[in-house]
């Protein structure tokens, strides 16, 4: 019999390539994963056989991910660049998917027309659209497509035992393994096992006259007769899974993933976290939800029974944390490592043939006839139209999701950053992008410079990162305590990682950078702010790497492409013959087992109607609740919540619309009042949680208490607001609050300020800096230093002065030693120090010894968020002595000192003070440093407090600080004997400049307090300016 070309498949291919092939140019760069794959592709393009990559983390091996797709991108990039490589691979993926679905559907249904329908619906299926256009999981798509291609071959091998099929099927399995390891691994369980079951079923069927007659005995006997083939095939497949990516397995053994589980939406309870439910359940299932009973009905028929079990399992596993079943089935470890969305993807792909069948029956088959007979032609048309309409709606909704709800920061132009890194040897240090999203991978493909961050967390090695459930440092603000805590450690001790530059695309991180001692260098043309840290050594020329044997390197570089080549040679003949119809081929065995589509069961029609009604009702309820929850002004609580929501996202016009309408109080006045309230909360706070309670309520008036919790880069802030709300014409509004009426004395201010400029190099040259172009390091003096034990912590406190004639940036590193002079720990001063000092300016400091948080599995992680929290270093021996290494470098910015303490009321318990800003810069976050002294006027402790609101020019800001009880504090060593400045003894440097310190004059400046464990205090100010003018 001569076969005609399947026109549906051709339509599907043409349509698929046009639709997805053009859409990817607008979507794929904004997906989560695609750029990571491109980065890996770049790696292979540059060093095919060398698996070590220095760009991310502190170096990692690319043997942590199957290489085929990446190598393909790398190979194709030689033709038209990296992006070309990525798009080309994506298009190949689309073609493979469409053809794969077709072949798989032919196998399952045994009907080429039905398979054609399946191929068409496959293109538009929302799970495929989501995987490609939102997640960008290219290896996953290619892996599952190849698996679908392999399935008919497997069937034919097991069924017929022809050697040809043995090789074709295994060659395809090998390619699958090389492109995505998880797919064949789970594919063996969820796809291949039921397939083998189906083969046995078919073989049994051939022995009897109908499916009904297949008894267990018949089935078992058939199984035994096929047993040899099954075992041969399965063991060969397992061998390939191990062998083809052997270096991967060896690497996972050698570097087990120590990463703690990183939260993933697919593990959420979808009913609680509705956004995850949308992304990982509703979208992938899409229109299939309406015909679920049909799918299950078909898959639970005797022939497909094993597929039925498999799809049930997949469906359940795909529900994530909604039910406890997936957790119990997979076990804690697997549950936390796997992303569960893949199960839903597989389930939806498994459903494609049945979906195709359903559509075929609806469009031209027995379902059409049944519907027309029962309800009439018009009903059938309307139903078909609605069905097709909602199918397309789902697809369009999915593909445009990224457009309406951006998943990534705006596209960044990387050229200025790349130029910056190439300039002046900036690429000799590591850099850190902040707020770049997944685009950071794209930056890494464009520069030689390395970053401490990275976007493939399974490959991380630094315990600072593997112990945290943090995706990337770059977006650490979304990860609460662990995120900011992790970032803090990198920013406080950057020299450990040779980290000198931070590219910030998110102002949120500015205060943490400032208070860790970083300063703004320049704003690039693309709006990215460059922050710099002084006194960081460049990377050494030779960096460590994990060497692997040359055999593994060769295997890794050669096998994947070889599998493609072999699979191509083995399968091309078949495809060639099928496509060109030169020769009449044998009818594949599975074509004999399709069912005849006559007589759609009317019971099924009823079930489907009822089910659709149920689904629609559930949808309706969901939409109603979402509306009630999100409708802004229907209740007093909603309006307050919406108001804070709008403020949080800086939708001021929207926020204003919730304020009681008043002609006198216009939007411009509202905006003005917003704009003058600066500070850590208003400028950098991110609303984390809001809880509202109604204090009293009448029909038209209520007062609402809003307990808000804000995450700021520096600390958690909990603040309670009380709002009066009013109901006007059925809508609730907020009564505006009174604003600060403080009036500054002067209308116009003239002032002289010291400003500085550093030439860098005077000669235009790319040579290493000349001796005479190096500025002398400013001299510092460590005036006081004390090792204290307080609150179960050892810490070093002290006072340091810039005794030079130029402003200095101070880096202070303290180390603790036990009595045998063994070093116990070392850390830098973080927040409790003023990092930039004017000539002769003094600051107190405190060094805490932080450990890598939660290094031990037994450590209890805090559940609440506190960015200021850190894990103390545990000392085995008691620290008895310490040294301090400080380094001064010429600073030219962040030297604002024009804030006075203009009023102070001191009691035994607290101080209440007033700050007054008399300069011409607005202070965004004022920090108060409080030093405690004992009655001998010896420094015993230093504390800090960030003031929540800023200080505007010529205006006041009030603060209250409660004293600590220092009765339990132990002062262990009060001495500056082991203090060093710029590598030279502190005393030698200091006495060269100041022959004799007038300590009595310093002591005159202390404030007497009747405190617990202390007798005097000193207050110092550290002013962070968010927007320097």
């Amino acid at each position, binding site marked *: 019999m001569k076969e005609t070309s399947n026109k549906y498949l051709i339509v599907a291919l043409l349509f698929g390539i046009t639709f997805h092939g053009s859409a990817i140019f607008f979507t794929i760069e904004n997906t989560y994963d695609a750029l990571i794959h491109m980065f890996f592709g770049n790696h292979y393009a540059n060093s095919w056989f060398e698996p070590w990559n220095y760009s991310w983390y502190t170096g990692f091996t690319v043997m942590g991910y199957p290489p085929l797709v990446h190598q393909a991108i790398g190979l194709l990039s030689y033709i038209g660049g990296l992006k070309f490589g990525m798009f080309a691979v994506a298009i190949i993926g689309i073609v493979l998917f469409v053809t794969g679905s077709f072949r798989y559907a032919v196998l399952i249904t045994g009907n080429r027309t039905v398979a054609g329908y399946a191929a068409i619906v496959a293109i538009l299926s929302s799970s495929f659209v989501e995987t490609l256009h939102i997640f960008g999981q290219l290896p996953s798509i290619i892996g599952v497509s190849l698996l679908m291609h392999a399935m008919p071959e497997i069937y034919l091998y097991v069924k017929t035992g022809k050697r040809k099929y043995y090789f074709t099927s295994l060659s395809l399995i090998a390619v699958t393994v090389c492109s995505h390891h998880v797919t064949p691994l789970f594919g063996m369980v969820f796809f291949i096992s039921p397939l083998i079951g189906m083969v046995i079923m078919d073989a049994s069927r051939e022995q009897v006259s109908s499916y009904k007659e297949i008894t267990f005995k018949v089935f078992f006997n058939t199984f035994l007769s096929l047993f040899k083939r099954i075992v041969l095939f399965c063991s060969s497949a397992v061998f390939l899974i191990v062998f083809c990516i052997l270096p991967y397995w060896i690497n996972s053994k050698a570097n087990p993933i120590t990463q703690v589980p990183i939260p993933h939406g697919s593990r959420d309870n979808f009913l609680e976290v509705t956004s995850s439910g949308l992304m990982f359940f509703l979208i992938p299932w899409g229109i299939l939800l309406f015909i679920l009973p049909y799918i299950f009905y078909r898959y639970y028929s005797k022939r497909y029974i094993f597929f039925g079990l498999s799809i049930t399992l997949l469906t359940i596993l795909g529900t994530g944390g909604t039910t406890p079943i997936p957790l119990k089935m997979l076990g804690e470890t697997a549950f936390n490592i796997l992303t569960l969305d893949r199960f839903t993807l597989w389930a939806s792909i498994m459903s494609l043939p049945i979906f195709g069948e359903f559509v075929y029956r609806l469009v031209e088959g027995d379902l059409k006839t049944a519907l027309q007979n029962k309800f009439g032609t018009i009903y059938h048309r309307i139903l078909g139209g609605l069905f097709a309409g909602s199918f397309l709606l789902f697809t369009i909704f999915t593909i445009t999701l990224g457009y309406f709800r951006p998943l990534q920061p705006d596209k960044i132009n990387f050229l200025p950053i790349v130029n910056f890194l190439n300039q002046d040897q900036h690429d000799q240090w590591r850099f850190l992008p902040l707020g770049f999203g997944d685009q950071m991978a794209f930056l890494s493909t464009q520069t030689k410079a390395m970053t401490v961050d990275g976007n493939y967390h399974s490959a991380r090695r630094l315990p600072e990162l593997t112990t945290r459930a943090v995706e990337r440092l770059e977006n650490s603000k979304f990860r609460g305590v662990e995120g900011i805590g992790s970032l803090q450690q990198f920013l406080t001790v950057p020299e450990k990682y040779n980290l000198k530059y931070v590219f910030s695309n998110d102002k949120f991180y500015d205060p943490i950078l400032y208070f860790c001692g970083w300063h703004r260098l320049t704003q690039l043309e693309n709006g990215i702010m460059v922050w710099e840290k002084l006194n960081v050594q460049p990377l050494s020329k030779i960096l460590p790497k994990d060497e692997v044997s040359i055999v593994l390197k060769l295997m890794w570089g050669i096998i994947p492409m070889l599998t493609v080549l072999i699979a191509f040679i083995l399968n091309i003949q078949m495809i060639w013959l099928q496509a060109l119809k030169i020769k009449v081929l044998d009818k594949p065995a599975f074509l004999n087992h399709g069912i005849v589509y006559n007589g759609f069961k009317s019971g099924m029609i009823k079930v489907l109607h009822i089910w659709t009604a149920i689904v629609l009702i559930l949808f309706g309820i969901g939409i109603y609740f979402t509306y009630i929850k999100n409708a802004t002004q229907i209740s007093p609580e909603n309006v307050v919540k919406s108001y804070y929501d709008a403020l949080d996202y800086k939708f001021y016009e929207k926020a204003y619309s919730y304020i009681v309408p008043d002609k006198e109080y216009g939007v411009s006045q509202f905006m003005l009042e917003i704009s003058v309230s600066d500070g850590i909360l208003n400028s950098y706070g991110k609303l984390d949680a809001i809880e509202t309670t109604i204090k009293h309520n009448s029909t038209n008036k209520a007062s609402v208490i809003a307990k808000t919790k804000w995450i700021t880069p520096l600390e958690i802030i909990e603040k309670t607001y009380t709002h009066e709300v009013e109901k006007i014409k059925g809508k609730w509004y907020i009564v505006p609050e009174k604003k600060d009426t403080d009036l500054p004395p002067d209308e116009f201010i003239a002032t002289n300020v010291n400003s500085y400029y550093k030439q860098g190099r005077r000669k235009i040259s790319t040579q290493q800096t000349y001796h005479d172009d190096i500025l002398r390091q400013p001299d510092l003096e460590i005036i006081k230093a004390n090792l204290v034990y307080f609150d179960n912590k050892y810490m070093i406190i002290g006072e340091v002065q810039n005794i030079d004639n130029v402003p200095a940036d101070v880096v202070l590193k303290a180390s603790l030693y036990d009595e045998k002079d063994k070093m116990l720990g070392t850390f830098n001063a973080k927040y409790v120090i003023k990092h930039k000092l004017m000539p002769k300016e003094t600051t107190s400091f405190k060094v805490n010894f932080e450990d890598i948080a939660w290094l031990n599995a037994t450590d209890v992680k805090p559940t609440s968020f506190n960015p200021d929290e850190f894990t103390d270093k545990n000392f085995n021996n008691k620290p008895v002595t310490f040294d301090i290494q400080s380094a001064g470098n010429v600073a030219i910015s962040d030297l604002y000192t024009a804030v006075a303490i203009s009023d102070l009321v001191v009691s035994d318990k607290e101080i209440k003070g007033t700050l*007054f800003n008399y300069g011409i810069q607005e202070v965004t976050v004022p920090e108060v440093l409080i030093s405690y002294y004992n009655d001998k006027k010896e420094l015993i402790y230093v504390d800090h407090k960030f003031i929540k609101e800023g200080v505007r020019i010529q205006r006041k800001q009030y603060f209250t600080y409660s004293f600590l009880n220092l009765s339990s504090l132990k002062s262990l060593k009060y001495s500056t004997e082991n203090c060093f400045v710029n590598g030279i003894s502190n005393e030698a440097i200091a006495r*060269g400049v100041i*022959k004799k310190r007038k300590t009595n004059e310093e002591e005159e400046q202390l404030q007497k307090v009747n405190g617990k464990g202390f007798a005097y205090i000193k207050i110092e100010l550290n002013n962070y300016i968010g927007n320097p003018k």
Partner: protein
Amino acid sequence: MIKRKPHIIVLVSIALVLLSVTLLDEKPTTKNAFSCLTTQENFVAGKPIAIEFKGNSENKPQLFIIHSYGRTLLDGVLKNDKIQFNLPKNYALKTGYVSWFLIENNKEKAKGNFQILPNDETKTNLESYLGPPSTLAGDNHYVMFVTIPTDDFDNPKLPNTDVAIKHQFLNSISTDNEKTKDFIAWKNIYAPTKSGIVLISASCNEALTKEFDAVIYPSIATDFTISYKRNHEFADGNQITKLTTSILKDKFGNTVSDGTMVTFILKNKENAILKTFGTTIEGIATGQILHPEKENKYSVKAFVNGISKSNSVEIAYKSINPTIAFSFSKDNRTITVGPIKSFMNQIVPDGIKVNLNIYHKDKLVETITENSNKGKAEFYLSPEFYKEKNYRFEIETLGKIIKTKEINVANQQ
């Protein structure tokens, strides 16, 4: 390890061959004497250097050279009964002592040494370094200028080579002739007592250095005086008093570096220490402080921390003695304070702090603070918190306290 194995095998086999050769070769050698024909002990760098020997050369003796540049083994050139060894060019370019050993059949046959001297006929180069690039005035602070005169092959010149080191400061230019010792000629240039820039250069033969500069910074500040300036003497909580230092100078009379931090310490009547800061410009630092809201007296003293201090100055602020009106609403739950009138009977500027101390049975319940707006401040006592009926109030603003009698706060209807 796999890679290294062939090497080890090769090395071991070479060693074995050598060993066998030496063992086999142990036949008695005839006594063979060599005499050195080259008597010259000093050579000049850059010129060809050859050492000649006389003797039987059939065993091909070799010359082992030890030079500061390195060690090597030379093969000779035979000429009749003489053998000549030519020093390789890269060795002949470098100065230093050279020891040689004539070796035949692994036996030392003769040894000697000679010296290669810098080539004065080539161009002189001068390498120089100045450090630190800046220092403080006077007090034996100095910068060190180091020069290394070399010949064109980068060989340091012989000891006692003359180098003229010049430096300029203001009107004076001085030249010192230093001689090299241990390759270098150097001079400590002591900082003058005046701040400024010292320019330094050196010359040797026709070679000149570029201009080096050392910045001389003023030394630390000495004690100074302060003064203040203000618009009026009233404690209105709004105007600013400016505190100014005299010109801060070091002990040599130099104005201190710009940016020197001065801390003004203001001790008020309650012994609380207020602070304001100034950084010097041309020696003068200015700090500013807001007028207090009530009568007070500040005792002000300024410090450069640990280094110097100023005199003490007293600043007194007079009370503006405001007239304060207040009224209660019908239910006594809203208290309106104001208009508050200032010293000229004008309404006080906005933003004056008004405290309302609320007492119940002579116990302070709460202090509510409001800022004045158009001379008025409004307080509302919410029935949620103030359930008790009778309260007494104290209105506190601009240093004045007004006490009310006990008032019955009605419950809202």
